[in-house]
């Protein structure tokens, strides 16, 4: 609990993080920016010479980029979960961590949004997926899950961005009231002239509640739609009704893991240990444990379905997944990283050990990336026609560089944001503190 803090402490400690950065901040920024540059160069190759520069092959028409897409969308979900769903559940522990999680959401979606564009054969025409009035009066095909994606992802990006900046308004005001010069101007802009007057708070809280109420079904729908990219097809291993819940759980698993991975160093660097405490990490660990269990159950269900369906194509695929060419990634990623490792969180000792938390969260991140890779690549490698079965898929250096670039892009945005805005919501932390009262002095 953080109740022993006072309003003033919170203000000082959080706003201190916005002051002039130290050199290692710029070092980090340089590294992430370089990673991004790598990715940009690699993508330029794809655009100049054709997608053949990547490792694609027949019949593996989707691979790294769609994996990255699903991965990053998934990352985003934990943010919305913590900021919106837990808000509706009035979970008090969310207050000090949700800003970081929400920022992560926005940037994860911004990253994910790149991949549907750069994975297509003619990226410069990707805008054709939007229903805009063209002189030829051609419209998109609303039966295609990819068009659903366009709507879901763009809505998700818009709403979560607005949600983030709505939450920032009062904190920006706090920053404004202490800052000077150009910084004062910047924060004044993001504060929109916020005063914290009673009527403002009244509308603000109502509006915030509605945002949360919208974001909640939205986040569920988004990953359901993403999962339908697969489930709506007839590909054995994709064509399954359990995909939406299965994918949402997976998304939250990977997202929470990423939140932990980011928060542990963040609080250290920003000296917020007394605001983001072990209490918060334990809660996050429990959430991770829960979703990991759901995901593990989903994995098992998939195999059971394959067997129970009696479909030779389904069972053929899952035998291939478990014992075929890509089996090692399956056993390491889906079984070890995602299903077994998080089970350690049953032990309080593990939950409260920051190093264990950090390492396991990293493993889960890797595992979840591999999960998407397995679902996509193994399914496509082993479809209906034996003639087209192939173990030949191999990513090229371009695939790797673009993937690395996406991490660069994400962390660059995140670092800039972290210096610009309070990574802990000042006003909401105050909300759960006891306000300063006369009696307290007696």
């Amino acid at each position, binding site marked *: 609990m953080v109740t022993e803090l006072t309003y003033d402490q919170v203000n000082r400690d959080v706003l201190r993080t916005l002051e002039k950065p130290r050199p290692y901040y710029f070092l980090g920024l340089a590294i992430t920016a370089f990673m991004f540059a790598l990715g940009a160069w690699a993508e330029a190759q794809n655009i100049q010479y054709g997608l053949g520069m990547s490792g694609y*092959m*027949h019949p593996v*028409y989707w691979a790294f980029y769609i994996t990255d897409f699903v991965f990053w969308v998934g990352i985003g979900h934990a943010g919305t979960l913590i900021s919106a769903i837990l808000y509706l559940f009035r979970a008090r522990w969310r207050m000090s961590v949700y800003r970081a999680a929400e920022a992560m959401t926005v940037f994860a979606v911004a990253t994910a949004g790149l991949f549907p564009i750069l994975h297509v*054969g003619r990226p410069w025409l990707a805008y054709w997926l939007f229903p805009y009035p063209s002189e030829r009066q051609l419209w998109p095909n609303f039966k295609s899950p990819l068009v659903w994606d366009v709507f879901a992802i763009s809505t998700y990006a818009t709403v979560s961005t607005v949600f983030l900046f709505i939450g920032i308004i009062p904190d920006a005001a706090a920053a404004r009231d202490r800052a000077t010069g150009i910084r004062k101007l910047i924060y004044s802009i993001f504060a929109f002239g916020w005063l914290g007057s009673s009527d403002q708070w009244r509308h603000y809280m109502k509006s915030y509640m509605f945002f949360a109420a919208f974001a909640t079904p939205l986040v569920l729908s988004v990953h359901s739609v993403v999962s339908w990219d697969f489930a709506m097809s007839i590909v054995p291993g994709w064509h399954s009704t359990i995909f939406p819940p299965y994918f949402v759980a997976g998304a939250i698993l990977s997202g929470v893991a990423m939140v932990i991975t980011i928060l542990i160093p963040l609080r250290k660097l920003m000296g917020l240990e007394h605001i983001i405490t072990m209490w918060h990490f334990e809660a996050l660990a429990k959430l991770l444990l829960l979703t990991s269990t759901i995901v593990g159950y989903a994995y098992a269900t998939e195999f059971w379905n394959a067997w129970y369906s009696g479909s030779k194509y389904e069972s053929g695929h899952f035998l291939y997944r478990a014992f075929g060419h890509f089996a090692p990634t399956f056993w390491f990623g889906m079984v070890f990283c995602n299903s077994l490792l998080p089970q350690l969180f049953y032990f309080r000792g593990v939950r409260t050990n920051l190093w264990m938390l950090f390492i396991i969260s990293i493993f889960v991140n890797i595992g979840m990336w591999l999960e998407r890779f397995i679902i996509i690549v193994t399914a496509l490698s082993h479809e*209906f026609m034996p*003639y087209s079965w192939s173990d030949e898929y191999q990513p090229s250096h371009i695939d790797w560089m673009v993937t690395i670039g996406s991490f660069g892009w994400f962390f660059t945005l995140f670092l800039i944001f972290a210096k610009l805005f309070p990574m802990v919501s000042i006003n909401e932390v105050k909300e759960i503190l006891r306000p300063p009262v006369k009696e307290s002095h007696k």
Partner: protein
Amino acid sequence: MADDIKRRDFLKLVGIGGASTALANCTPPVEKIIPYVVKEEQVTPGDSLYFATVCRECPAGCGMVVRTREGRAVKAEGNPEHPVNDGRLCMRGQASIQGLYNPDRFANAKRVGGGKFADLGWDEAIAEVVGKVQAARPNGVAYLGPVTPGTFDNLVGDFLNVVGSNGRYIYEAIPYAPLRNAAQRVFGVNGVPAHDFEKARYVLSFSADFLETWLSPVEYALGFTSGHSYKAGEMGRFVYVGPRYSLTAANADQWVSANAGQELAVALGVLHVIINENLAKQSVNGVQSLVADYTPDRVEQLSGVKADTVRAIARGVTAQDSLVVSGTTVANAEELAVVTNLINYAAGNVGKTVLLNQLQQQGAGSNDLTPLLERMERGEIDVLVINEVNPAFSYPDAARWNAAIEKVGYVAQLDHQPTETGAQADVVLATHYSLEQWNDYVPREGVYGLMQPVMRPVFDTRHPGDLLIAIARGVRAGAIGAPDYKTYLRQAWGSRTGDEKAWTQALMKGGVFQAGSGSSAPRLASTATQLEVKLPELQGDVLIAYPTIQYYDGRLANRPVLQEHPDPMTKITWMSWVEVHPRTAEKLGVKNGDLLSLKTEGGEIEAPVYVYKGVREGVFAVPVGQGHSPLFGRFSGEAHSYRGGIVSAEGVRGVNPLPLVTPGFLAAVQVSNTGRRQTLITTQTQPTQEDRDISQVVPLSQVALMAQQASEKARKLEGEPLRAAEVGTIPNRVAGIQGAEPGASFYPAHDHPAHRWAMVIDLNSCIGCGSCSVACYTENNIPVVGPELVAKGREMSWLWIERYFEEPEAEEQPDARFIPMLCQHCDNAPCEPVCPVYATYHTPEGLNAQVYNRCVGTRYCGNNCPYKVRRFNWFEYEWPAPLNLGLNPDVSVRSRGVMEKCTFCVQRTREAKNDARNEARPVRDGEVTTACAQTCPTNAITFGDIMDPNSQVAKLTANPLGYRVLEELNTQAAITYIREVVHDSEA
């Protein structure tokens, strides 16, 4: 004469049309590009113009019709009027357009030095040759050329007369001389007897691959399938005896694997049984002594063929109308042919399936050049004129040839493309490609195929005939009665086509075709049984080289599409390999891709292993065709894929086994594992179809039952109205198809107002040759992507043959099944709804259309296609000039980043519909067909409008043996496959 001039003018005009468009791309430009001022007669931009000629990619001499657009040849198809191939072509013929436009062709005469070709003026070149010929001693000039039955042979004769020589030598790496000599010895005829496979109820082949390369494959493929496949409750039988499970063997009911080189022993054994069991329908005098020693048991020791099998064959051959054929790329080819003839005679096939009155004319070609070589070695040859043959590559005893040609004073090579032999010459006289030539070709008595230029020459080349005439006239002014070869040809045809009208008709028809004259009555020459048998003594491992359906004897190795097209049996492309039996591989401790070193007296080669049940233990089979020197061409050289282009390195790709083997195409070999590896480039890594039932067969005994079930099902559904999902689709009840029930769809169906294009593929006829695939490449401008990309599964083929081995691991004999796979144009196409921009959709005529311009390239359709027939353009693919001239102007060339696939040749459909509209009539059945259906040598593919109940395709769809691939997915595919009926023994 007026007509004559008119015709010549017309051809010139066509030529100008060709030039004005063609020359834009080939260097150096010969003349200015001038736009049409006055539209030429007959040449209407946008309209196709067809020229009949003869395919010269191999000696079979199939009739060909070449489609030209704006004076440019764009597509080769069979000539329906021609008795040999009845309108069909094999993949070699389909690829001839790439020979015409081959970027590595000679653009003009060349001086050869140090294996390099330097430009040389024509006058200078010819003057030089004339000088050399004049300087030559009497009979010092020799001519070495391929089989050219017809007027060209006469010209060669005249030429040699003029230069005072009798040195004419005919070379074919795949020789038919053994067949001719054997026929001479047995029947006393001068030529190779014709074969009627259609009449034969029982076919026995001793390593004769008559579906691939042997004599006249297209003709025999159609004859064989129509004679052999299931009809009215019964079907023929085909037994193949040989050391290797070739494509032909794969189409046999029984592959009798015999020791390499021991076919002769088996043949003698069969004859032995026929004589001793008195099975002969016609007695053969004096044969007893010949076959006495070859009891079935001795044959078993020699050849490894079970004695009972030998007996069974003997009984089978004599029990019904049969046909026995023998290969020429085997040991003792001539003796084998003699015994084969004797068996045919004894079995009473002569006059029925073996015809002595329509002799094949390819018999001159021999792969034994000893007489010439001896003269060369003695230094008797001052001038050697070589016409389009390549012994330096294909002669079995290459070392001897290379040594001998050094001793020749002067070598003039007439050829259209650089060859190893050309590199040994002093001067190269660049010749027209066969499609640019006036000529004729007589594959068989009474079949006079006429060749005419289909367009103006692409390069500054000369007609080989004109060159011989020019040289002759240089030697002796006014020699040879004609100034140029066309005149010479016209004169030669004077008897056959007296007046201009007849000549023009012959040109339009593609030649003059008469029935065989003379009697085909069975007869035996006195020499029939004079035969001393020397079986090859091969201890230990044996290397066999076999000609391939793609490259024939290697001459076609520089056709990109043939390089890219996978081998029918191994599905390997762009490389050489050595086939090794699993147990042999185990002994050697090698697996697929391990480089084996094969050493014989002829030399040593290294090739990667392909473990294959289709070769006998201890036999190492290497395909012929690869291993050309880099100068042969960029595609046969060490080509590499690079960002959609193909770059060639100064290296050799693959190996050439011919120098290692004897004229019998085999040799004892020492095999060792190099320990190095070379990954096999293949389009199919999964050998079996597991439990997927893609290619289905039905045992002969089950056919009746299946038909009954189908009719019962039809009766059951009789009363019911068509369910929604059936309207406008192919009702399952019609096809009598098991699997998804009608009405399985959740949505109501859509109907097809005018047409619903559909296809039927009869697996009884399909032999898996792949002609359809290559035809598709040339018709639809499908790019060739090169080895590295094929290895990544990025080949662009819209249509391919899936080859599945039906073999439990224990099974000794492989059993290959073939099924052509292409876009099934499903009524409920899974690929359509997932496209976000409607780039693929269902046309009112039932086609699954792909709109390239609208395609964004999400590739979702490709993922969702259960048949995996969608190809993606990973790069912008290149057609090195002038190959681009061969592009079909009716089909758009796809840019990078878009999906593509089979369109059912929509451009042909459109053409037919336009014609019909112009004539204000509905489209007739059979009027519109796809490139694959058009060329299929065995007529396995039928295309048409299934909404027309009287159409061929509608009738065939109702076949009770019909099924649709992955029927249970309820895609309502437009392609119905007809199950192959097999003898119960195989099922």
